[in-house]
């Protein structure tokens, strides 16, 4: 599963990056986020377009595992 690192980006950028990455990786991907708004917003986006989302703390942020 590929990893998309959105660290350093503020919303809506992490959602845009996730949207683009899901276009090429339809089975899912891992997204690293480093702020709460990005964590919540990426999770909302993935859920709204039909994916399951698991969130775990990692380093100074979170890892979101987005899968079908």
């Amino acid at each position, binding site marked *: 599963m590929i990893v998309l690192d959105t660290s350093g980006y*503020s*919303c*809506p*950028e992490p*959602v*845009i990056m996730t949207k683009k990455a899901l276009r090429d990786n339809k089975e899912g991907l891992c997204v690293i986020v480093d*702020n*709460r*708004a990005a964590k*919540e*917003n*990426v*999770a*909302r*986006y993935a859920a*709204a*377009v039909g994916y399951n989302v698991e969130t775990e703390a990692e380093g100074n942020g979170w890892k979101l595992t987005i899968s079908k």
Partner: protein
Amino acid sequence: MEEVRLTQLVRSSGCNAKLPPGELHKALDGLPSLHSDMLIEGFESSDDALVYDLGDGRVLIETVDFFPPMVDDPEIFGEIAAANAISDIYAMGGNPSIAMSLMCFPSCLDISVMRRIMTGAIAKAGEAGVVIAGGHTLSDREPKFGLAVTGFADKERIWTNGGVRPGDAAVLTKKLGTGVMMTAHKAGECDASEAIAQMRTLNREAKEAAEGLCVHGATDVTGFSLMGHSYEAASASGVTIMIEAERVVFLPGAEKFSRLGFLPEGRYTNEDYLSEKVSISEGLPLPLRDLLFSPETSGGLLLFMPPEDADEYLRRFPSAFIIGHAEDRREHPVIVI
């Protein structure tokens, strides 16, 4: 000359750029407040503006508001910043008269961009009958613009956020969702034309439509969200404000983009501050909950008046809508059902 895209120069925009309310209280709570016998509304009351008694039956109302751009067009940004700043005077029931501009401007931008921001601001101020009579300009990495506005009112007729009475209807004069729509717009997901048109609209007609009606309390809905500004009014008035979520009108597309996660960062810091103060029905869908906590820019007036006056107000200003009412104080200052 290459067309400038103002929103690409800033990290946050509009009223979403406000410091989170919890942080603001940490910085300011407990500081000594200098006293003036003539100051009716000041630092302590969390109201929209200061109110100073002129001693002749009139009061002076003063407010300041400035923020980074939420649209790319400099002239429209100037209009929105002016409409947003002037709104605080209307929210106090006053007539805005004079203003000074606050401009932060990056050296990398062509100076004509500043002129276009001012052109928009002067046009909008003129529409409100306000004269911009000076200002201050700084060189800064990110552009920001706004106004310090002075208005006047009869002392007996000012509206504060502390006068809400049980039984009052809560009337909102603009749709919710500007923060979400502008976040989606920044992401290239929509043109947000209705949100932009709404942000450019003065609250002048909304204020003047209440002429002769009984307004017990008022505020406007901006960066602290509908929940935050309702809480401030409920808290200052010692009442509970009941909001019926299904009566709140949202901008077209706002629910969709909320569901897709195009939410401004302030949505989360607002709820951090308000979580103990606001009770929201567990059945309320998440996209609506998100919208209720999302910052608004140049939002509508939130007026509290007896139900019969509210009915007359809606006849005069049909784009407004009732979102709930005030009751005797319960455990939570704001309840959403």
